[in-house]
């Protein structure tokens, strides 16, 4: 049962599935890092992207690339009102974090609900068939889906890093992530940065969902479960750190795929919750400094310190 070949196969499958998982995680981590929002509405973005691709490809019979474009476009179209009408208003009103959380959750539920009304609760896929021809390489089954999916992920992640390093707006995003107040001080328009960050994250999430939908069945509620994975990976990987989140996503994918060897299938569903729980209870320090360390400020303050604006 533990033959090296099986292990190798699991390793490969994990790597292949981690393609979209990494992208989900990157999108979530990016918004968390730059916009400082636990964006559960990413599930809505994912659902919209999937059904856009599904409609064009599976229903209307258009080619795959049209579906991909539709997924990306739909994701961005949702991102705009989400940021401009939703998050921006909540920020202006200094809404407490619990409201922002519930707002994103409700958006996801709303979209799932609409999808249910329009498409029903049946599982759907982008292409009519999930079957991909398989080639055996050195004893390991590699499907024709695996390599392009991994390639797309590598390209997308590299593009993101180049974008953050090389473009002006990308550098602004990094600056805002590090210290929003200081960034504003240096003349970076925060609102624009938040919008761009949402758009970029939505593009990534849209691509990831397209990949997922070409390999597995999707229901209106699938996206929220997929998002849990991204949340766990982001938290374990450390929020300050996109690279860490990516690495964690790969490792978690490996854990999940290899768990079939150890855990009865009825309890497979719990694994994700276990990840999330462990992440939150045992790794919060990777997330945010404990309170007693936050007393001292890293930013020098003027001798006259007016009352800090506080959230009520």
């Amino acid at each position, binding site marked *: 049962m533990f033959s090296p070949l099986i292990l190798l196969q699991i390793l490969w499958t994990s790597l292949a599935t981690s393609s979209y998982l990494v992208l989900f995680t990157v999108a979530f981590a990016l918004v968390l890092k730059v916009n400082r929002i*636990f964006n559960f509405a990413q599930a809505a973005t994912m659902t919209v992207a999937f059904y856009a691709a599904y409609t064009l490809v599976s229903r209307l019979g258009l080619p795959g690339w049209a579906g991909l474009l539709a997924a990306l476009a739909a994701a961005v179209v949702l991102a705009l009102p989400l940021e401009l009408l939703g998050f921006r*208003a*909540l920020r202006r*009103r200094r*809404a*407490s*974090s*619990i*409201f*922002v*959380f*519930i*707002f994103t*959750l*409700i958006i996801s*539920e*709303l979209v799932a*609900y609409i999808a*249910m*009304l329009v498409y029903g609760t049946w599982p759907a896929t982008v292409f009519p068939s999930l079957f991909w021809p398989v080639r055996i390489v050195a004893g390991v089954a590699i499907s024709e889906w695996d390599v392009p999916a991994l390639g797309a992920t590598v390209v997308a992640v590299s593009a993101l890093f180049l974008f953050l390093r090389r473009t002006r707006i990308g550098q602004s995003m990094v600056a805002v992530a590090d210290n929003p107040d200081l960034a504003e001080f240096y003349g970076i328009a925060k609102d624009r940065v938040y919008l761009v960050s949402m758009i970029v994250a939505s593009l990534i999430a849209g691509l990831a969902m397209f990949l997922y939908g070409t390999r597995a069945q999707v229901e209106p509620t699938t996206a929220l479960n997929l998002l*849990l994975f991204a*949340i766990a990976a982001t*938290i374990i990987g450390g929020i300050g750190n996109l690279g860490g989140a990516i690495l964690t996503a790969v490792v978690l994918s490996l854990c999940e795929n290899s768990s079939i060897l150890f855990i009865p299938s*009825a*309890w497979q*569903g*719990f694994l994700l*919750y276990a990840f*999330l*729980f462990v992440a*939150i*209870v045992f790794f*919060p320090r990777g*997330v*945010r400094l*404990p*309170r007693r360390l936050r*007393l001292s400020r890293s930013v020098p303050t003027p001798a006259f310190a007016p009352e800090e604006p506080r959230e*009520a």
Partner: protein
Amino acid sequence: MDYFYSYLILAEIYVLLGLSTNLLVGVVGIFSVSQAAVFGVGAYIVSDFLLSGTLSFLPALAVAAVACIVLNVLLTLPSLRVSGDYFVVTSFGIQLLATAVFTNWTGGTGGANGLPGVPPPDLFGFPLEETRQILGFTTVAAGLGCLAFWLAMRAPYGRLLKAIREDELAVAAAGKDVLRAKVSAAALAGAFAGVAGGVYATYMSFIDPSSFDLDASVLLLTMVVVGGARTLAGSIVGPFVLLALPQLLQLVAIPTTVAASARQLLYGVLLIAFAVFRPQGLAGERL
């Protein structure tokens, strides 16, 4: 008339839950979205004892209250390590985990099919079978809950909890034990939720995981926000208003298959609308 009574009974049970949530979220500022999970544990414990006949109603209720006290304290402990939005996500994870357990642990909870035939509540051997009797009982229970909340809030204890919500560090600097105050508030909130769960199960006589899921937790938060945080009046008004809404919704023709989701969305939209446009709720303060 029975229809109206059943509305009152449910609203009173939710008043207990509203008090529990208001204490934790409104007063102390621990942003929990898993109060429905604690509610559910109370409901399942009482149901299991009554269905197996090992305990009668009041002792079962006491056991449920104690179990929920312990559970709520444990669930709140991460809030001592992580703050604000990070605790919201913790609590979100806890709620999902609880729903998964309720749905999959068929031995204790009947799984997704739920537990039918929970016997009605009884007081010292007298079963409360008529709706009016149960209404009397829930009125007393909710009344006691309100009294406890009112006493706690006007005592130095309530003041301490409100101060902790505003600035934990300053409270510690004033020489107070923040940890003990937070844990005791979580315990109190747990007891309220546990009792509410037990009463709910015996009144409904059927429970399933859908009453204790994330949506239910969001409903509890909505009650606190719509009613108003930190006040007794808010904790009472919230449940009565929100439970009346579905009745109004029935006047609009919506297919029953999606009615539950529609109701849920309505609650959520209300929550955000109040948060943005009337943060102090109908009869309270800003969360």
